């Protein structure tokens, strides 16, 4: 049967190639791996081996001509059985492998000072050498630098190409829906959290049952503020606004497979220590991949805390069908002006994203302001200490 031979692609950027010379003639029997023709690209001259076993039946592109990648350059008469296992179109495979080669051959890499071992590991782990700072002499990148780069890179990517499926696909779909559906606006503000810090430390010192986090206090504060400003949890369903009954507050947890938001039900009825116990359970279940669906549904508000990663303000995405999400940043000492004088005060940045379809700016701002008040003076919050 006839088999077309195509102009192969040797790199991600190769668009066309020139046949310099044919090494075989029409009528020649050709084995796999025989030198077939000499190809010139913008980068180099390469001897291309025959992709099929058979007889060269026709030369379509004579020596000297340039054609696009993928164009038919020759036709071969091949034995159907023997080529059944041959790669149907060898060109893409070549392209993928050469793509990696191209990455390595980029001039930028050539200027980088890195040990051979570091280079090999960088290729194996898909770490960009240009993004690394070397700890060796003359800034030479060593193995330890690459290993550090690997550990700091995206969690969970282990192979060059992973199918989009499972949790990741779900998250992708939901994030996409959120950004395309909601009219999201983000408000940022900062709270003075000296008293919050004090409160948490007292709670940690006062009991050994659980170790409350700042997040646990924030959840309680939000619950109180929501009760006072219920508009913030209005939801749009089928052309109507719904007000949920239970103040179930979710908090974002980064599991290995992706973001998960377990729910603390009726957060307004819980003390800080209650919330701490509950959140500890939920985090444990989440990380061990055994979170019950009940604990992940019917949330009306979400708290997303990136403070541990050193983030200040950010624009959290709304967790549909909810209408608002609170982004929590890091607590940092900051020089603030109080009564005209500068003081070093611990400050916490808060970012509230709300869906302007359901809520307007001022009500959202008032809600946020209330949260700030509660965090700056957390005396009013129920601690759960007896």
């Amino acid at each position: 049967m006839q088999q077309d031979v195509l102009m192969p692609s040797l790199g991600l950027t190769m668009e066309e190639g020139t046949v310099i010379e044919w090494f075989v003639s029409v009528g020649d029997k050709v084995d796999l791996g025989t030198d077939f023709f000499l190809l010139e690209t913008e980068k180099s001259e390469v001897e291309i081996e025959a992709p099929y076993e058979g007889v060269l039946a026709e030369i379509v592109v004579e020596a000297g001509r340039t054609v696009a990648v993928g164009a038919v350059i020759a036709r071969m008469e091949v034995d159907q059985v023997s080529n059944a296992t041959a790669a149907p179109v060898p060109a893409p495979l070549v392209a993928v492998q050469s793509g990696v080669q191209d990455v390595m051959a980029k001039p930028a890499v050539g200027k980088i000072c890195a040990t051979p071992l570091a280079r090999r590991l960088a290729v194996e782990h898909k770490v960009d050498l240009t993004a690394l700072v070397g700890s060796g002499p003359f800034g030479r990148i060593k193995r330890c630098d690459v290993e550090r780069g690997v550990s700091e890179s995206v969690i969970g990517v282990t192979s060059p190409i992973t199918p989009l499926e499972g949790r990741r696909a779900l998250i992708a779909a939901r994030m996409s829906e959120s950004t395309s559906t909601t009219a999201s606006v983000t408000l940022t503000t900062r709270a003075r959290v000296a008293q919050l810090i004090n409160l948490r430390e007292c709670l940690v010192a006062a009991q050994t049952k659980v170790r409350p986090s700042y997040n646990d206090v924030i959840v309680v504060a939000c619950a109180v503020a929501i009760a006072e400003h219920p508009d913030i949890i209005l939801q749009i369903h089928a052309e109507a606004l719904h007000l949920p009954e239970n103040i179930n507050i979710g908090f974002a947890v980064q599991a290995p497979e992706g973001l998960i938001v377990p729910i603390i039900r009726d957060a307004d009825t819980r003390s800080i220590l209650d919330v701490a116990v509950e959140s500890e359970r939920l985090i444990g279940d989440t990380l061990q991949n055994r979170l019950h669906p009940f604990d992940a549904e019917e949330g009306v508000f979400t708290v997303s805390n990136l403070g541990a990663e050193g983030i200040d303000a950010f624009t959290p995405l709304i967790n549909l069908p909810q209408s608002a999400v609170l982004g929590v940043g890091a607590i940092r000492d900051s020089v603030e002006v109080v009564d005209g004088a500068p003081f070093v005060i611990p400050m916490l940045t808060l970012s509230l994203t709300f869906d302007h379809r359901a809520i307007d700016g001022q009500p959202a701002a008032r809600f946020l302001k209330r949260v700030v008040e509660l965090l700056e003076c957390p005396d009013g919050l129920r601690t759960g200490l007896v």
Partner: protein
Amino acid sequence: MPQILNQSYSASSATSEMTYAEAIREALRTEMAHDDRVFLIGEDIAVFQGAFGVTGELWKEFGEERVRDTPISENSLVGVGVGAALMGMRPVVELMFGDFVLLAMDQIVNQAAKARMMSGGQVSVPLTLRTTTGATGAAAAHHSQSIEGWFLGMPGLKVVAPTTPADAKGLLTAAIRDPDPVVFLETKQLYGLKGEVPLGEHVVPLGSAVVRRAGTQVTLIGVGGATAGCLNAANEVAADGIDVEVIDLRSIVPIDTATLFTSVEKTTRVVVVQEAVERGGVAAEVAALIAEHRIDHLDAPILRVGAKPIPVPYSPTMEQHVLPGLSDITAAVSAVMS
């Protein structure tokens, strides 16, 4: 009568403590006792008992025919060894100082090393050339050279440089039994070194390196007498938390790349140390082999430590300056760790 040649072998597990020099004498005695073809030839090896006392009283034991003093005729006495070897004898030729091999290079290289090839395989030259290498302190330029690297480019010779008494005995035995010419380098400074040596027949095959100290972070390869310095350096840097693996290269031709490569794959860092001039010697060949075949395992450039390219001076301060010292080795180890 087939003899064990290419594998490690000890006839008995019993050992005795003896010096490096005594171990060499033991090897000579053992081989001469059971193989009539073996005889010794060299200057002052009989009545004088050897310039360094190695041959001792072998002349009394085996007679002056088989332990033969010669006139001072380095080139021809090696030539005599070549002729005897061509006739099936197993001469062990001694050249007192490695520096003197230069007088005999024609017979060693043009004749002994090339005979097998030139004759189309009709003959081989089972000659063992024993000579000394290394500085001893104030021996000056004509008596101090380390010559391990001189024969790398001369195909047809095997070269070994033992660093322990047991290895001295085992390698010399293998050298004498080898059907081709072997240069057996005795590090002068080690003649008095004591160690446990297997009694009776003891063979250490040519062409094998050995790990003297296991480690994980740096491969420190010692050429001949420099191995002791490597072990000292390893102990010193251990205090800084650097874990060094020391390899005694032991065989210069051929080089045991398998052992070296296994170590490099583990540690990713290499320093090669020799007492000879750093330029163009064994360390350069080892470095090139590792760079060529294990480049992707290297997390640092390969460093060499060797003597400065100056004829060894007489005065001790100058000599110390020229020859590599412990601090040179530890500095190199630190450099590859940085």
